[in-house]
């Protein structure tokens, strides 16, 4: 077997010497690329200048600048808002893994066909239907004010914990649907191949379907997580002193809204790395495919 020539073996032949025609082609490509870059730069600058001129010439601009872009208030608000923002990050970091676990489990529960698991499947379906329909803000209200009101033993009363539970319930439903779409996008022949090797349903899911599905759903998942980072601000409604709440306190007591700008910037600073990471992963997947 090994002695036989294999398809794709390198044939004999002259080594490649780049022809004059190819050199000329590459020169043309380079000069075109340079021209596109200059055009892009020029048009971007023009665009920014236009927007700045338009905004700063608006009749209300001096007042807006004072209320939203005050450097002095920026510096004064930064410490409080930033310390509140640490709570946002903490909530995000705890909620994210919980959401992933809930999402995967609910998605898997919906794939189990065994009759004994009917209630589990029905429950999983009901859960996604309900929590995708109810606005996240409402879920947080209901969990944050409703759960403690039950006064049951063992139910947490800590506001941050309740906020995390609310976010997890709401986002878990979305993420479960993302995973389910990923699982269903794996061709049935992959399952047949795994089962024919003797792998059980569970092992087929674990070793064959989920790893492929997860790869496919990473971009939409990261999108959901970017949106979760923003939605950590919703726990402000429970009275938690996170970034938005801190900014609100400053804004309403001092009649200056620069604190909102501070909070916005902090959120952007958090989401940008995530967005770039999503792009990076997508690019890597494309390269792998090529």
């Amino acid at each position: 077997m090994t002695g036989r020539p294999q398809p794709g073996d390198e044939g004999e032949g002259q080594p490649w010497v780049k022809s004059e025609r190819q050199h000329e082609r590459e020169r043309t490509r380079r000069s075109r690329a340079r021209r596109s870059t200059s055009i892009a730069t020029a048009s971007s600058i023009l665009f920014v200048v236009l927007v700045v001129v338009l905004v700063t010439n608006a009749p209300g601009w001096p007042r807006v600048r004072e209320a939203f872009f005050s450097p002095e208030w920026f510096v004064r608000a930064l410490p409080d808002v930033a310390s509140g923002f640490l709570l946002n990050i903490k909530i995000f970091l705890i909620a994210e893994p919980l959401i992933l676990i809930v999402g995967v489990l609910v998605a898997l529960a919906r794939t189990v066909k065994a009759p004994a698991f009917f209630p589990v499947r029905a429950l999983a379906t009901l859960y996604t239907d309900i929590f995708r329909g109810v606005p996240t803000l409402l879920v947080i209200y209901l969990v944050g004010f409703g759960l403690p009101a039950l006064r049951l033993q063992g139910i947490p009363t800590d506001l941050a914990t309740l906020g995390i539970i609310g976010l997890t319930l709401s986002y878990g439903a979305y993420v479960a649907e993302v995973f389910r779409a990923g699982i269903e996008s794996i061709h049935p022949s992959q399952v047949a191949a795994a089962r024919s090797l003797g792998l059980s349903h569970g092992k087929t899911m674990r070793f064959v379907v989920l790893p492929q599905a997860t790869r496919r759903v990473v971009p939409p998942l990261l999108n959901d997580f970017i949106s979760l980072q923003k939605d950590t601000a919703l726990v402000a409604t429970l009275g938690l002193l996170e970034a938005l709440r801190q900014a609100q306190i400053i804004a309403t007591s001092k009649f200056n809204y620069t604190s909102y700008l501070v909070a916005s910037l902090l959120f952007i600073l958090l989401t940008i790395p995530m967005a770039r990471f999503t792009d990076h992963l997508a690019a890597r997947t494309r390269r792998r495919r090529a």
Partner: protein
Amino acid sequence: MSLLTIEGVWKNFGDHSVLRGIDLEVRSHEVVSLIGASGSGKSTLLRCVNLLETVDDGAIHLDGQEITDPRVNVDDVRKRLGIVFQAFNLFPHMTVLDNVTLAPRRVHGVARAEAEERARELLDRFGLGGKAGSYPDQLSGGQQQRVAIVRALATRPKLILLDEVTSALDPLLVVEVLQVVRELKEAGMTMILATHEMGFCREISDTVCFLDGGVMLEKGPPEKIFTEPEHERTRDFLRAVLDSGRL
């Protein structure tokens, strides 16, 4: 004693009966070919043996055990069978080595080192020694199909089912995959293969079965089926294949 016995197996899809009372015996070390027009039920029969489809009537025995009994554990049955699909169906997210060692490790509980050693042995034997670390999409069709065969062999099955393992390949690659099947026969492997490669079928089979609209119309040694078939339908089929230049 026969390794596999198929008795009066029926399979319906809706109100369309795809298999209509199939009988077949396969002895150890025997190579049985299924031939017949597209849609005659070859793949369906192999999928029934593998329990990827449940039969609607009749019974299949493997090693004396009725595997069509609803109480048997399908995973236990599949541990003793290997199937190779027309479309390879390798796992694209795993390297060749991981594709081959998945079942030995996760189903048969073989330790990683041992599973990998046997996998490398098999890969070497089938000319894939340098490909252990590659991903399926980095291989040619012929290489992928050989990996699929190695994957099916890795669990030391008693019976291998090959479903048109060459029909997705171009002629040059067909040769290398058929060579693998020849080597398996020499090694004494029991095989059932669905095929459209008539020349190869004639050369390698101990028994050839002609399927026609879900009925096993004729079976016998290849010389008999290919030179003096009893049925008009078999003659027509072979003539059609001959005309298309595949004999």
